[in-house]
């Protein structure tokens, strides 16, 4: 399924990347170095204001780092290079936190899910139909969902639609911004299961921004902890969450509310 690349080349890589808003001295994220290798899912963990969303925008090619680089398949990502960006957009897709704002309320689900295929020039409206049906089936939605509008679906179902859209063009990397935090607990578990299934079956590499450590632990092999725009600790998830070295990580792990034994 996944195109076999040189095993040593990370799909996405950030080196010493910083980002500051124009006219603002303090960078939102600073000196970030990350490697995302195929099949090795990464969680970016942090609390509000840690710079998680900015980091995601850099990785999505929606913003350019003020210093440092973002590399895709070994080449520096150039937002002006149309051919590279087309390849990049096909390989890297995104799921958002809020399943209400992430689906255009005036479009049918079929049109929403097929948007990447049509925009990337892979398919037209007609030839996209079977792929859309397949993508919807994969996320566990009924076949007639394509004909309906987003408001006819619950939050969990809407997040499934968003996942169908993000996986319809067979990307290698799925960037997810708090993909389950807006969902109820029972729904949350089901969507986590779905993401884990997509990882296993389709060799999808997941890069997930989250504040929820249990979700991180369920889905990602690697974890990087962000505090105020800097990475304070990164490595194997078991290592980072099981034996945190940094005091902030330790505080984070200890703060997770637990069920009574």
């Amino acid at each position, binding site marked *: 399924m996944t195109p076999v690349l040189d095993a040593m080349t990370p799909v996405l890589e950030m080196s010493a990347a910083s980002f500051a808003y124009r006219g603002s001295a303090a960078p939102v994220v600073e000196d970030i170095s990350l490697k995302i290798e195929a099949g090795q899912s990464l969680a970016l963990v942090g609390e509000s204001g840690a710079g998680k969303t900015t980091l995601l925008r850099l990785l999505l090619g929606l913003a350019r780092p003020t210093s440092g680089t973002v590399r895709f398949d070994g080449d520096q990502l150039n937002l002006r290079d149309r051919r590279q960006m087309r390849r990049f957009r096909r390989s890297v897709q995104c799921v958002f936190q809020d399943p209400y704002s992430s689906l255009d309320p005036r479009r049918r689900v079929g049109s929403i899910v097929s948007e990447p295929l049509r925009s990337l020039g892979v398919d037209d409206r007609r030839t996209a139909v079977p792929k859309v049906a397949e993508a919807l089936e994969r996320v566990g939605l009924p076949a007639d969902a394509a004909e309906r509008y987003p408001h006819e679906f619950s939050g969990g179902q809407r997040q499934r639609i968003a996942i169908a859209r993000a996986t319809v063009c067979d990307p290698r990397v799925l960037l997810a911004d708090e993909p389950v935090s807006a969902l109820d*607990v*029972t729904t949350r*578990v089901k969507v986590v299961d779905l993401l884990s299934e997509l990882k296993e079956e389709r060799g999808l590499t997941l890069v997930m921004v989250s504040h*929820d450590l249990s979700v991180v632990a*369920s889905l990602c092999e690697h974890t990087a902890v962000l505090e105020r725009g800097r990475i304070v600790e990164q490595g194997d998830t078991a290592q980072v*969450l*099981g034996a945190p070295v940094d005091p902030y990580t330790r505080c984070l792990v200890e703060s*997770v*509310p637990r069920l*009574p034994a």
Partner: protein
Amino acid sequence: MNILDVRDLTIRTADGRVLVDRLSLTIDPGERLGLIGESGSGKSLTTLAVLGLLPDGMTATGSVELAGTQIVGAREKQLTDVRGRDAAIVFQEPLTALDPLMRVGKQIAEPLARRRGLKGAALKRAVTEALEQVRLPEPGRIARAFPHEISGGQRQRVALAMALACDPKLLIADEPTTALDVTVQSEMLDLLDTLVRERDMAVLFVSHDLAVVSKVTDRVLVMKDGHAVEEGDVREIVRAPREEYTRALVASARQLESALDLRSTR
């Protein structure tokens, strides 16, 4: 006597849909009850009904007795007397619960002046005390700040200070930590626990998160689609849920938590 006695509370929308269906619950003075449910379960509506704050078009039937006052069908005048004195509420989103155009100190002063009749220096002292009580650093600076100038956690502490200002007999907390970061949530839950314990206050704690509820309350009531599904000791329910829905809820929470344990012990 119960501080809160809800009997067969039913809440309907204007077009007759039933959102809460014959719900009954009681809270003794100083007792804490957790209300657990997912979105659409009617848990938040129930808390609003307790204070007679249902949105326009929704009607409540049945009985809600708060410290001996019947809330269902009560006049606005009676309700105003009850709110703050008998019960106060802390909402999920502190940014919308506070007036964005009013300094924090003034917002806390308002209930203090109204309920305790304080003025001038005494009022100012009471405001500082109220802020200190919720462990806010530099109460002077916070009192002069506008809500958007302080952090989310600090805003929620301010909201808590306002709720506690009139020493209510019952504190209603509707997802008070859901909008907060996990480290801030943990501090907030500890604070809530301490303050309520000191005052021997009754609590109705609403949340979708079993783990969070279990940190504050002993007894929980599980709600789904407007119905009470199961009620009992929180440890008991987590250990051996009786109803199918509760089992699903506990299983989901367990599954996520077990991932955390697996990772951290491997």
